[in-house]
């Protein structure tokens, strides 16, 4: 497993945790992002991530480097899923280990916040109504042109 990874497979939580273990670390903070069954009043059945992997990996590694430099943590890793996902699956996993807990919490928060802002990853929600929509993108296209699933 690499430091920052995009995968279409279920994330192996134990293998991920093993990357963070270090005898000089007294703290490990992990964040799991799960697939939720609702968004903005709509019932979500499943979702789909589109990822532009070449740049997502490059930018993801940059975020990890920045977190390590900024907070002085010892290890920082992250994995993000691509493709179709069912409810309650782990969509994203961030992990940090550090001698002390404060820096680990701060670095973990920084990584997930930056990942949401900077990585070329898009989420399409499939609703109970039968419609599907790209999250945050309603203003990107003319109304009525977004109901086909591509």
């Amino acid at each position, binding site marked *: 497993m690499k430091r920052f990874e995009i995968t279409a497979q279920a994330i192996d939580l134990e293998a991920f945790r093993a990357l963070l273990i270090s005898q000089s670390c007294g703290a490990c903070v992990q964040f799991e992002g799960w697939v939720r069954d609702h968004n903005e009043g709509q019932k979500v059945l499943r979702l789909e991530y589109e990822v532009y992997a070449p740049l997502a990996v490059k930018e993801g590694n940059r975020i990890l480097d920045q977190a390590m430099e900024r907070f002085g943590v010892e290890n920082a890793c992250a994995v993000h899923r691509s493709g179709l996902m069912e409810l309650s699956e782990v969509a994203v996993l961030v992990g940090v280990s550090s001698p002390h807990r404060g820096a680990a919490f701060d670095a973990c928060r920084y990584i997930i916040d930056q990942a949401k802002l900077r990585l070329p990853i898009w989420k399409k929600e499939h609703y109970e109504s039968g419609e599907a929509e790209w999250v*945050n*993108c309603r203003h990107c*296209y*003319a109304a009525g*042109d977004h109901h086909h699933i591509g």
Partner: protein
Amino acid sequence: MKCIAWEDRPSVKVPGMIKISVRYFAAFREATGIESETLETPAQTPAELFSECITLHGSLRSRTASLVAINDEMADWETPLNDGDEVLFFPPVAGG
């Protein structure tokens, strides 16, 4: 005035025009109906290029909160374009 045959003309490009590969992702791909295209354009920045793409593709609307990359590096909407660049239009991202 010296004349030359049409087929002997130097193969210079139209002044001010550059050739750019454009790739559309997620909502932009579905709005345009295509993944990529090559454009001969007077656009000097991704912002100008996107405006041109809006006129070419009726369903494409706003680039608010969108990102752009040039040749696989994150860029700015005002970064100068060069002939042969590949421009990637990223609609608002939603990872995590």
